[in-house]
C-alpha cells in the first residue's frame, strides 16, 4: 500500500471478498492471492460506480454489468483456428470505428493476443487432463469449442471480451499466476510447454478493468476495458473481478 493510502474495510459479510481503496496492481495481486476476488483501486472509494456495481452483484448473486460493458454497438467474431489470431487482431485494430485509437494499438494487440491464446491453448483438456491443444502447433477448434470475441469502441476506450466453452480456469490459478508475476523474481517466467505463464499478468497491466466469469465446465468469459489515457490519468485506477457461476 502506498503511503497514506488505505484499502477500505468491507461493510458486510457479502463484501468479504471485495476490497477497494487506492493501491498498485502489485498490491492488488497480494489481495487476490489472499482470496479476495473483487479488487477495486479507485480515487473515488466506495462511491465509484464499478465498486457499486460489484457490491450490488454480491448482494444479489447476479453478475454485474459494468459501465464499460454497456454499448449499443458491440461487434462479434467467432474463432476456431489459432492461426487466424493475427488476422483477427488486425480486423479489430483496423475497424472503421477504431479511428482515433491508434495510441492504444499496442495494448489492444497484446490483450487480444494473450486472451485468444489462452482460449486456444488453455481452455480445453484431453482425456488425461492435459491441454488438448499444444502451444507449438496450430489449434483447430471444433464447433463446440469455438471462441467468441466481442468488442466495442467508446469515446475513451475499447471493450474486449473473449469467451471459451471450456470453463477450466480457477480463481487459484489466476491468483498464483498474478502473485508469481508481480514478485518479478527468477520464477516470473514459467518453462511449461503450454506457455510462459505471463498472460494474465500482461493483460492486467494493460487494462483498466478486468472481469473473469467462470462457469465450471461450461465457459470462461474474460472481459476488459482499456482506457485510451490509462497510463497518464489515474494510473493506479483499476479493477479485478472474478466470478464463479454455478452450472445451470
Amino acid at each position, binding site marked *: 500500500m502506498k503511503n497514506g493510502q488505505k484499502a477500505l474495510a468491507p461493510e458486510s459479510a457479502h463484501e468479504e471478498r471485495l476490497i477497494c481503496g487506492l493501491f498498485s496492481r502489485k498490491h492488488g495481486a497480494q489481495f487476490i492471492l489472499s482470496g479476495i476476488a473483487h479488487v477495486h483501486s479507485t480515487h473515488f472509494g466506495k462511491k465509484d460506480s464499478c465498486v457499486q456495481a460489484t457490491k450490488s452483484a454480491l448482494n444479489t448473486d447476479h453478475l454485474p454489468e459494468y459501465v464499460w460493458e454497456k454499448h449499443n454497438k458491440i461487434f462479434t467474431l467467432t474463432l476456431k483456428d489459432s492461426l487466424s489470431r*493475427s488476422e483477427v487482431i488486425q480486423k479489430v485494430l483496423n475497424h472503421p470505428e477504431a479511428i*482515433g485509437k*491508434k*495510441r492504444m494499438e*499496442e495494448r489492444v*494487440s*497484446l490483450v487480444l*493476443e*494473450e486472451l485468444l*491464446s489462452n482460449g486456444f491453448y488453455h481452455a480445453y483438456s484431453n482425456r488425461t487432463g492435459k491441454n488438448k491443444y499444444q*502451444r*507449438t502447433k496450430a489449434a483447430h477448434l471444433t464447433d463446440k469449442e469455438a471462441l467468441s470475441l466481442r468488442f466495442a469502441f467508446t469515446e475513451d476506450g475499447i471493450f474486449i471480451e473473449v469467451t471459451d466453452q471450456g470453463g477450466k480456469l480457477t480463481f487459484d490459478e489466476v491468483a498464483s499466476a498474478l502473485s508469481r*508475476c508481480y514478485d*518479478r523474481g*527468477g520464477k*516470473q*517466467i*514459467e*518453462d511449461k510447454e503450454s*506457455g*510462459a*505463464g*505471463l*498472460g494474465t*499478468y*500482461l493483460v492486467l*497491466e*494493460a487494462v483498466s478493468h478486468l472481469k473473469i466469469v467462470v462457469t465450471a465446465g461450461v465457459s470462461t468469459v474474460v472481459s476488459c476495458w482499456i482506457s485510451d*489515457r490509462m*497510463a*497518464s490519468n489515474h*494510473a493506479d485506477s483499476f479493477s479485478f473481478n472474478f466470478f464463479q457461476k454455478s452450472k445451470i
Partner: protein
Amino acid sequence: MIPSDKFKFEVIDQGSTKKLLLKGVIDEDSTFESILKLSSPLVLNFKDITSINSCGIRSWVNFLKDLGETKVVYEECPPLIVRQLNMVPSFAGTATISSVYVSYVCDNCEAEKKILVDADKFRTKQSLQIAESFPCESCKEGEMELDSHPKQYFAFVK
C-alpha cells in the same frame, strides 16, 4: 536479411560490434540461433519490432541467457519494448539501454509523436530529463503531452 516468417533482422557490421536491426513479431515461433552465432558484442535495435507476446518474452529471455557474457546494448526501444522492460526485469538481463522512444499526444488534435530519448536523459530515476509537453506542430494550438507517467514509463531505470 535473414529469412523468417514473422521475425527478421538485418546485420550491420560496426567493426568489433554488430548492430542488428530487428523487425517484426517476437513470439513462440521466433528463433534467435543465427544471432547467437555472431559471437560479438551486439547492439540490438528494436525500432521495427511490431509485437511481442508472453511466449516471445520467454524466448527472448532464454536467448539472453544463451548469450552469456556477450555485451548487449538495446537501442531505439519503442513503447511496447519499454513495457516489457518494466514488467519483466529479465527481459533486459544485463543489457544496457541506450535509447527509448517516448510517446506524446496532442491535447487538442490527438496527433501523436514518438520522440527518441537517449540514456543521458534517464540515467537515474532521480535525474529524469523528459519534457512533459511541447507545442503541437500539427494543429499549432494544442500541447503535445507525455502519454504516460514519466516515473512509470522509466520504471526500468535502476
